């Protein structure tokens, strides 16, 4: 199981796994595994949405340390897009996308609002995984972001959703997913893709291999704790920049922990530290102001909650 932080990874699509451990097993690319509902992957990976570098590292564009930037120059934007779409194929094929178009559009608009406030030029493609009642979120290259229905049902307001989506974008901005698949195991694929001499069929095959790797390395295994911490910080800053209350993200993590759904918290002692660190950051930098938008969130999501009988009541809800 991955930690909250770890769970977030779907690599090109990442996931915020609060629930933790659900992502452990698998290999099916789900990141949600069969465990108890966990945010585990909730914040997953949006992957490469758009950003400053060719891999969509949003945060990179402005001149961060060059040595920290993924330099897989062999991946073209179309390769990157294909990987993001393939990860989305994997997840949506398994879990389906909500038939509630209003809900999908709502999630997309929150994601786009965050993207508008990021330093890059993101145009996310987002949706709700309809048949997954665990607590997870995923993101992948080219801005594909998915959140499970189970994760939504345990939220109380729009600021919590914004925090989770922003966490996913954080993985993208920091290129966590790309770094994961640039492991030695894929060195050959990256090298071949960098060759102009390969055929289209070879390119398609290589991109397929990298997509599989992405799912395995990011979705199934999750990110490192350091990466999760980094994405957490981006989440708080990005949500605040977009005008949301960044405390919403913290409240959500606390609620999951309190409900015992975030197995992650019990198995990963560092999770409580994350919450403390985020609260401290918000207070220290005076970020704790912003919109919660509880009413419209509940008006949009409530139908699904009533239909499933899922509980989203516990915890601190924010208003």
């Amino acid at each position, binding site marked *: 199981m991955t930690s909250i932080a770890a769970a977030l990874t779907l690599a090109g699509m990442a996931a915020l796994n609060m629930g933790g451990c659900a992502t452990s097993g698998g290999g099916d690319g789900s990141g949600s595994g069969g465990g108890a509902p966990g945010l585990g992957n909730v914040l997953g990976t949006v992957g490469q949405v758009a*950003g*400053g570098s060719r891999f969509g590292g949003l945060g990179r*564009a402005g001149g961060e340390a060059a040595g920290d930037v993924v330099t897989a120059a062999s991946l073209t934007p*179309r390769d990157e897009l294909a990987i993001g*779409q393939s990860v989305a194929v994997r997840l949506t094929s398994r879990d389906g996308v909500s038939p509630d178009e209003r809900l999908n559009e709502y999630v997309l608009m929150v994601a786009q609002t965050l993207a508008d*406030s990021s330093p890059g030029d993101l145009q996310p493609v987002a949706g709700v995984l309809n048949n997954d009642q665990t607590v997870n979120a995923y993101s992948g290259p080219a801005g594909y972001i998915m959140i499970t229905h189970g994760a939504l049902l345990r939220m109380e307001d729009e600021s919590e959703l914004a925090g989770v989506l922003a966490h996913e974008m954080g993985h993208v901005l920091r290129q966590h997913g790309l770094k994961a698949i640039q492991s030695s195991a894929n060195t050959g694929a990256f090298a071949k893709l960098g060759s102009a001499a390969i055929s289209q069929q070879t390119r*398609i095959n290589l991109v397929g291999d990298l997509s599989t790797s992405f799912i395995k390395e990011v979705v199934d295994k999750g990110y490192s704790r350091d990466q999760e911490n980094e994405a957490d910080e981006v989440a708080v800053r990005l949500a*605040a920049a977009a005008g949301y209350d960044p405390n919403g993200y913290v409240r959500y993590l606390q609620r999951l922990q309190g409900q015992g759904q975030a197995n992650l918290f019990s198995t990963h002692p560092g999770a409580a530290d994350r919450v403390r660190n985020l609260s401290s950051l918000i207070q220290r930098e005076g970020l704790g102001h912003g919109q919660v938008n509880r009413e419209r969130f509940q008006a949009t999501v409530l139908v699904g909650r009533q239909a499933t009988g899922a509980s989203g009541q516990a915890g601190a809800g924010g208003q």
Partner: protein
Amino acid sequence: MTMSHDRSRRRGGRILVISAGFVLGAGLAVAAKEVVVDRPSLAIRAERSGMDPPVTTVTQGTKLEVLSEQGGFLQVRAPDGKVGWVKATALTARNLSAGNAELVRNADSSGLNTTLAARGNLEEAAQAYARNSGQSTAGVQKMLATRKRLQDHPERLHEFQQTGKVGAGRQ
């Protein structure tokens, strides 16, 4: 440095280039001295890579004066006089001259990425992945359709942000 009045518009919506004359990046001239925002909202930031709150946020149709270019970003002045940075990929390659289109692509290849995603195309490699693994593309197509509807109706995002007081609606 010609004054061309090039107009370009990417489908996903970003910025319309309406007049001319500065040099981007590696010495390639871009026909633009004034740009028009062609997306529901656009954050103008003090720093190119920062995630601090924008110095100002402008909405669709707003004209921005281009002051300079650096590292794939444009420094612009908004109508309220505030100065900051926006990404060069906000410029569309469509309808630009061949040289300028290439410049935009070079400025940041992820711009193409964004454009492709916005078009709603499912890449051949992704189709092959689905076919070879026996998985459906229906879910992804549905997500792309949602994206396209939002792009075709930017007023919906605008209203969303205004009523929620987030994004461009914060001010």
